[in-house]
Structure formats: C-alpha cells, structure tokens
C-alpha cells in the first residue's frame, strides 16, 4: 500500500488515453424516447397531430367566416376554378368563373377573391341559355350542350384565361353556402374533443375496473370478467347506438356514450398486466410492510404496467374518432349546424354527383388523422415494449 514505485507516478505519453468511464446506462424513459424518435412515421404522426390540434382549436378564430353563417347565393363554390375575362367597350374588365354544376357565373378579382354572384338576364329555359350584360357587351351562357359554352354576340366563344384558387373560401362552400374550411376545423375540434375526453373516461374506468379485478382475483375477478365478457359479446358500436338513442344526439351525450362502453379493452389489458405482476417480490415486500391495497395498486402495480396502458390508450383514440364520425354519419352524432367529420362526409355524399370536392376534404381529414394515430400507436408499442414488435 505504501510502496508505490516511482514510475507509477510518471506522466503518461500524450497519445495514451485513460480507459473511458462507461456512461450511465440509459433509463427506461430515455430508451423509449430514443426508440420513438428513431421511428420516422411515428415522429411525422406526432407533428401532424400537434398541428391538427393547433389548427382545430385556434384556426377558426383566424377565419372571417363562421361555421353556421349561410349564404345561399354563394352555395357550392369550388375551391379552385377556371376564370374567364370579358372586357367591355369602356375598357372595364370583368373576371368571373362558371360553376359548371349549377350554371351560375360568379365574379372574382384577379387574385381569386370572390366578389359575388353575377346577375344575368332572363333564362331561356327552352334554348337553355342565359344572357349576361357587361357594359355594352352581351355574353350568352349556352348550356344546351355540355360542357356549357360562353358565347359573345359576334359568335366567338370566350375561353378561360387560367386556373385560380378561391382566396375567399379556400376549401369552397357547402350546399348552404357555409365555408367548408371553417366547418372542417370545427369538425376537427369536435372529433378530437370527443376522442380525447371519451378516451380519458375510458382510461379511468378501465384502469380502475381492471386493476380491482386483477388485484382481488378469485371470485371477484371471475364475476367482474364475466360482466366484461357479456358486454363485449355484441359489438361495442351497438351499445353506443342504443345509448345515443336514449340520450338524444349532442356533443355531451356522444362523449358519455363512447366513454361508458369502450373501457372493456382497457380493463382486460390492465387486469392481465396486474395478474402477472402481483406475484412479484416487490409486491409481497410492500404488503409485508403494511401498504394498503390501494397504495400497492396505484404505486406499484399500475406504474409497472404503464407501457401496455399507454399503447391501448393511443389505440382507443382513433377508434373513438371513428365511432364518433360513424355516429354522425348515420345521423346520431352532433346536432346541426355543428359539424363533425362524419356529418360533413354525409352532407357531402348528398351532393357527390355535382360537387365531389366537398367529399374530398372531410374524407382526407379523417383518413389522415386515423393514419397518424395508428402510426403513433404502432411506434409507441415498439418503443415501450420492444418484445411486442413484429
């Protein structure tokens, strides 16, 4: 101990490295985060969901339009159109576009802002034509043969000058002249609210129910799980339908209906986890030290089964969004004029033949959101529990 030979104190050569101290092993949380960030689709999904939430809850305030204001004169406006321009004798140019499905002309400016419906002369029902006056020029809209043509007095046809985006109504308007973009954002708000709140309700009921069943075991467990089995014999959607019939449609009742049914999956998962964990030594230790069952459950068992719980939670959100839109689609969801993705889709189906663009936005929105939550769920499952990944 005392004799340390002098050469031990000698300086090391400059290029010799000391054996590096291994960095502390990453914690579970760090590992999860690393694996999640490495999963590109999941990261993109998180970004998408965050943007969607921001847009849904703040977007409507930025728009000059409201979700309920109707303007029948400007109904069924498309999001982009081919503009025409007519110059009269005084050199005044009027820009407008033709809505090919209802044969109306709408005046627009050069940037694509909507100025209003153009008033035409008397419609000639038999010849299927309508004259429009622009100063000294008369333009005739001839829709006897499709596609409709715009003809000047001298017989020359007016050609479109180019495509333009609708700057006033970015996504166009619906059959009652309401702005589709704002309705879409409100729909997102409602769909997301229903999904998050209902999922939270499911989470609490499911964790509580499954936790008790798993921890108590024996007869209590058998009876509680028999009840779950009876509930899940028929599709959960059917219960939601029945509850909606009883509650009558509305935002709160759809949250209650979804929240009171979909906890059975969560209860099953939690029970399974608890059953596996409760024979662990640390639970026995806690019990020996006199911890109450409630404390063991909330402090020891549930934190250790957090992985599967979170995965189930993220999988519950898309199914809640889906059920809500499904209910709204069959007319059991939110009450008009409120919009949700389901009711927007079903409204769009009514005008599908003439205005297919109205279907595109809600359909794309719900599909993208479902994608995002599915990818996020898959990513979280892989990150939280690598053994489960396929």
């Amino acid at each position, binding site marked *: 101990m005392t004799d340390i030979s002098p050469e031990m104190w000698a300086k090391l050569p400059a290029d010799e490295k000391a054996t590096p101290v291994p960095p502390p092993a990453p914690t579970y949380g760090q590992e999860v985060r690393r694996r999640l960030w490495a999963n590109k689709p999941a990261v993109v999904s998180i970004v998408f969901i965050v943007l969607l939430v921001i847009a849904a809850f703040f977007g409507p305030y930025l728009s000059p339009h409201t979700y309920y204001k109707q303007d029948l004169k400007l109904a069924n406006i498309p999001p982009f159109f081919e503009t025409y321009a007519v110059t009269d004798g005084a050199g005044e140019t009027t820009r407008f576009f033709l809505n090919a499905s209802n044969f109306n002309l709408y005046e627009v400016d050069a940037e694509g802002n909507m100025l209003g419906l153009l008033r035409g002369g008397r419609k000639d029902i038999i010849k299927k034509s309508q004259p429009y006056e622009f100063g000294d020029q008369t333009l005739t809209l001839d829709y006897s043969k499709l596609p409709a043509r715009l003809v000047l007095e001298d017989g020359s046809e007016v050609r479109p000058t180019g495509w333009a985006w609708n700057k006033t109504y970015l996504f166009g308007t619906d059959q009652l002249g309401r702005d589709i973009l704002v309705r879409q954002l409100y729909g997102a708000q409602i769909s997301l609210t229903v999904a998050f709140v209902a999922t939270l309700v499911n989470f609490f009921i499911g964790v509580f129910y499954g936790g008790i069943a798993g921890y108590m075991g024996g007869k209590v467990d058998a009876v509680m799980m028999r009840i779950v089995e009876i509930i899940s014999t028929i*599709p959960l959607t059917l219960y939601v339908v029945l509850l909606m019939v009883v509650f009558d449609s509305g935002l709160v009742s759809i949250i209650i209906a979804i929240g009171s049914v979909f906890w059975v999956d969560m209860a099953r998962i939690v029970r399974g986890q608890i059953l596996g964990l409760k024979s662990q030594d640390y639970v026995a230790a806690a019990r020996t030290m006199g911890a109450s069952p409630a404390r063991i459950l909330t402090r020891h068992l549930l934190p250790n089964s957090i992985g599967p719980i979170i995965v189930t939670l993220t999988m519950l959100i*898309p199914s809640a969004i889906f059920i809500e839109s499904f209910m709204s689609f069959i007319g059991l969801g939110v009450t008009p004029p409120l919009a949700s993705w389901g009711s927007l889709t079903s409204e769009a189906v009514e005008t*599908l033949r003439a205005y297919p663009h109205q279907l595109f936005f809600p359909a794309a929105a*719900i*599909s993208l959101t479902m994608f995002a939550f599915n990818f996020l769920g898959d990513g979280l499952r892989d990150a939280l529990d690598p053994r489960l990944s396929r």
Partner: protein
Amino acid sequence: MLTYILNRLGMMLVTLWAIVTLTFFLMHAVPGGPFVSERMLAPEIAAALNAKYGLNLPIWEQYLNYLGRILTFDLGPSFKYPGVSINSMIAAGLPVTLQTGLLAVICVVALGVPLGVIAALNRNRWPDTTVMFIATLGVAIPSYVIATVSIYVFALRLGWVPTFGLDDWRGYFLPVFALSGFWISFVSRLTRSSLLETLDQDYMTTARAKGLRKGQILIKHGLRNSLLPVVTVLGPVVANLITGSFVIEQIFALPGIGRQFVLSITNRDYTAIMGITIFYAAVLMLMILIVDLLYVWLDPRIKLTKATA
C-alpha cells in the same frame, strides 16, 4: 365436447337475457312514449293503443311479457308501421345482409390470407412493401369513406358499376369491397406476421432438411400453424361486418337489416331497435361459438374445457 357446447349455450342464454333486459330498460328510459308525435292523439285513442300493446301495464309486467314473447321467438310488432312485425322486418332484410356479409367474409379469407402469404414469402421486397402499404391504408380509412370514394370513382366517374342497389350482379362489388376492406387489410397483416413467425420455427428447417417439396412445407407446416390467429379474429370479423353494414347498406341503399336498424333509429321505432339488437346479439354469439368450435377442430391441442375458464 357435448358438455362444452351445452355449457356455452347456457352461457349464451344468460348473456342474451342480460342484453334483453338492458335494451328493454334502456328503451323504456327514453322520454316520451311510442305514440308521441306532432299530431296529438285523442286521450281515448292513446289509451286504446296503450292497452292494445300492453303499455298500460306496470313496467315489470311489460318486461315479463316481453321476455315470454322472446322465448317464443316473437319480437313483437313495430310501433311505427302498423301491422308489421319485427320478425317480418328481419326476415325481409336478412337475405340481403347475409348475401353481402357472406361475400365479404369470403373476400376477407380469399384475399387477406393469400396477400399475407405473398408478403411474408417476399419479406422486405416489393410485393411485401406494396401489400403492407395497401394494408396500412385499408386499416386506417373508415369504411364509409371507402364506400363514398369508391362510388365516386367506380360508379360516377368510370361507370363500371351501379351507384346503388343489387339489381345487377355488378352492384355487389362496391358494398362488398367497402365492407371487407378493413378486414382484408387486417387479416393480411395478421397472416404475414404470423407466417413470418412460423417460418422461423425449427420444424420448418426440419421439413426443408427432409427434402419435402416447397409447396407442401408451406401449406402443411407453415400455413396450418400460422392460420390459428386468423381463425380467432373471424368471430370479431363477423361482428364488425354486421355493424359495418349499418353505414354500407345506408350508402348503397340496400334493403338489409342494417338499413332497417338505422331507419328504426331515425324513426324512433323502439320495438324495432330492441328486436334487431337482440337478433344481432343472438347471431353474433352463435357465430363466435362456431368459430371457437372451428378453432378446436383446427388445433386439437386446445382443450375445450380450458376455453370456458
């Protein structure tokens, strides 16, 4: 085997009773009676109607009557369409729903399984990525979106199929496609992952080492062992095809039970809602029982008695 089936049937009856009770009291919790409408009925007529349908009795007596009728497979009269019984409503809708539903199940098995096998055998090559990409699409897109978009593309734009109805054999394409889309995707994903797992097993190596033909290895050793999870989901598949049919039959205007159900919801025809729910529950439980029996037949290692515990 027989005791197992009897056991299960007994359990089914208990479940069915629970569902009947639940729907009965739920439907009676709805404010307003079945004859409340914009046109006020004279009190005498209302009383006569209530007496005719036994609605003047105390609720427990109505409940017992209802239970008694259900035991004789009589779901009672519709409150919205005089003279129409729920049984005849179901009988009218059943063939349509059965046809589309069966075709959808066939599609799920006949397309989902082979697609999954192709994906698994070509792991990480283009057939796999293509199938998995489509399957990811199919799992995320709601059925009503598939239905409406495919109506627009195939019926309105291309004009290959009619937009609604089943008068033409081509009319079946879109409803069946929309109904089964999700489950084809789901089953192909499941088959792929399950087959990949099986392909790694030692007995597969043994079979190859014995010099068995490739097809034989795949079918006898690989597929048979990896199809068990697929069979397990077939029960839920049937269940979800039934609920899926609410929307699909609505969109395609098919006169099936799903459409009847949605119609009776919008009409607030409470006896019809109750009757169809109970009918659904009974059919589903029967289906799940059949799937469980099929399961045992496929894999004799599974003990029936364990399944009840």
